């Protein structure tokens, strides 16, 4: 049966987790002693934070893990009150089997505002007898100090090419896919240490045909979003402001990307733009300023448009 491979091949045990040995060795010790402090996992996307949390819970509770593990997304459960309600409900019943506490995994904790984090801290305090928290974030610096000081902090590193390649090879074998060596290297290179991206790209490439070669990988890497973002940049550089604005609307409205998502992708696409290095540097400076204004202002679309207008001007001086 077909499945989404990121889920199908998600490692079930800490032993199977790829890379991050400095993390998994500690977590295994927690499983053995049936005890653990609050944890803070930090690191880029696709490096195994959620996978480790799930594997840890499986290790602690075996078959009872689902009843003892609560997964929350800080970025979606708007308002800390909802989060508190869920935590309260979860913490009402005693843990079953295994360890004498339950585990609450809060993904994307750095999406919480400072006030919400302060509230979260009080909640952690209140339920710490019955619950251990695992918070996950991209940047530790976005987590308030009082929470940091209550957690053991684990930094997840981008996976190295060997780890990515080994894991992809296992999937290739499991799915009976044929892939050229250089194509596998290409996938690994494009993923830049992000396992989720690597596995997703592999699945897309495999869906295009039974044999994956370098061409397929090249196509796969020219994926949907970045292509639209570079389209928008090129429209602006070509002086077509209104066209670029329409593309921006489409990305924001139809794909649901936030201003932050988009500016992140814009920032990543600069190096392919047909402009001088001096202009690239000026553009980076302006983009940083605009990102700051998105945070500070009220309408992120207007701020992004100001950036597009700047691109229009750079485009005209380049000619």
């Amino acid at each position, binding site marked *: *049966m*077909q*499945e*989404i491979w*990121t889920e199908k091949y*998600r490692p079930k045990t800490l032993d199977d987790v790829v890379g991050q040995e400095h993390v998994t060795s500690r977590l295994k010790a927690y499983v053995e002693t049936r005890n653990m402090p609050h944890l803070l996992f930090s690191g880029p*996307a696709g490096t195994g934070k*959620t996978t480790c949390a*799930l594997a840890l819970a499986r290790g602690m509770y075996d078959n009872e893990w689902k009843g003892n593990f609560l997964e929350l*997304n800080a*970025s*979606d459960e708007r308002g800390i009150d909802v989060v508190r309600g869920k935590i309260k409900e979860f913490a009402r019943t005693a843990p079953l089997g295994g360890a004498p506490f339950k585990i609450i995994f809060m*993904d*994307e904790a750095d999406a919480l505002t400072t006030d919400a984090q302060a509230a979260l801290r009080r909640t952690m305090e209140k339920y710490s007898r019955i619950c251990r928290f695992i918070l996950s974030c991209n940047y530790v610096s976005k987590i308030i100090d009082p929470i940091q000081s209550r957690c053991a902090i684990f930094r997840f590193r981008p996976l190295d090419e060997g780890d990515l390649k080994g894991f992809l090879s296992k999937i290739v074998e499991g*799915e*009976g*896919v044929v892939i050229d060596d250089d194509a596998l290297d290409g996938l690994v290179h494009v993923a830049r240490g992000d396992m*989720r*991206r690597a596995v*997703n*790209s592999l*699945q*897309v490439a*495999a*869906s*295009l*045909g*039974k044999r994956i070669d370098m061409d397929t990988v090249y*196509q*796969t890497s*020219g*994926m*949907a*979003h970045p292509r639209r973002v570079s389209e928008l940049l090129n429209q602006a550089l070509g*002086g077509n*402001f*209104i066209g670029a*604005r329409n593309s921006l*609307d489409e990305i924001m*409205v*139809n*794909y*649901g*990307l936030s201003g932050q*998502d988009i500016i992140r992708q814009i920032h990543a696409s600069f190096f392919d733009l047909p402009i001088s290095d001096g202009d690239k540097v000026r553009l980076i400076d302006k983009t940083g300023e*605009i990102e700051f*204004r998105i945070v*500070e*202002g*009220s*309408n992120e*679309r*207007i*701020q992004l*448009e*100001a950036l597009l*207008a*700047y691109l*229009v*001007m750079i485009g005209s001086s380049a000619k």
Partner: protein
Amino acid sequence: MSEDWTERYRPSSLDDVIGNPKAVADLRKWAEGWHAGKGYKKAAVLMGPPGVGKTSAALALANDMGWGTVEMNASDQRTGGAIDEIALRGSQFNTFTADGEYLDEKSGGRKLIILDEADNLFGNADRGAMPAIVRLIRGTKQPVILIVNDFYALSRKSSVIKSSTLQIRFQKPRASSISKALAAIAAAEGVSADRAALDSIAETAAGDVRAAVRDLQAISLGRDSITAVDASELSGRDVRGDMFSLMAAIFRGDDPMAARQAMRSVDESPDHIALWVDENLPREYRDRGDLVRGYENLSRADIFLGRTMRRRHFRLWAYAGDMMSAGVCSAKRNRPASRDAFRFPGYLMTMSRSRKTRQTRASACAKISATMHTSPARVASDVLPYLRLSMGNSLSLRRAVVRSAGLDEEELAYVMEADMDSDVVRSAFSHEATETAAKGGKRAEGPAEHPASQKSLFQF
């Protein structure tokens, strides 16, 4: 007098519909085709702005043809089930009129099924309404009329609606036609009205007949005669007049302080005005330098708006207003060349048109995120682009995701960026039997089981 004139003077025959001779003729021809038993399109879509007579034309048509009507409009709950029921009532058991008179289908007794405001299929309550409308159009044994303001909102969901309906466009009638109709109503009500008064009402209504009739009734209340002075009590239905002169002061005027003054006299919040400035800025400032300077000041204005809301310190609004009016006005070095009409903020229209899309996106992402330990926001930004491609090439993956996440047709259509009745969506919901059969034996199927329909990434 208490009765609403817009109802009392609804035309009873197509001959009395104001304006739109071509639309009326097309509609009549369509109905006669049905009558002759060879309806070449089972459903007609009447489209056009509010108040131009779409509903009136549909009702007048039914009257002219001697058909009964089954009506459903936005105030009804239009779930898929409710539409199916209406369709059933209208088409399968077509034996009695509303008055209980027996009508045999063979003797020509028909019912016209009218779905009013069919483009407003918004909200969760209307879930499943779209497939039901498609079923209705496909299976109906009775004439169906869909009434919409925005045909695009309806047809983008389903190509069936585009291909199997006759689309009839209603235009705004001219002020002179409206004025003539108002004169007839005034006469019937015994109100003496001078020509200038009626012209003024018709002018204010800007093509909206319903609004004109309502205004006439409002002014005539408690009076035997009305004059142009009475009519001038009416104010326009929106504030665009003021907004337009504000835009003119900002973009085409050369006095920043006058622009600032104009800003203060408009009764709209600064964040709303910012959207107007934003919409028109690139259309007005064609010079690149003007454009970038204009946006710099608008961007500064937006920062003040953000700070106002965040700190709840409303004094800061004044700075936002000054920057977007005087600031944007002073940003130009070139004489503005544009003489085009200023535009309503397109973003607001996009947002209202896309409300349903956004709801569907939210529910699709939430359902998928529940199956993969990832937040809905991350599903939208990092997962969907890949999933869309993999699923596009693999029917069994589409089925698997539909089943494990519990997606409905609308959500899958969003994920695949396809119409709800496209093959890519329908195939994932049909032939459950073959799927189960295949599960028993060894799967011969490789990763790409449909080589013929394979898509390259460049086609997306």
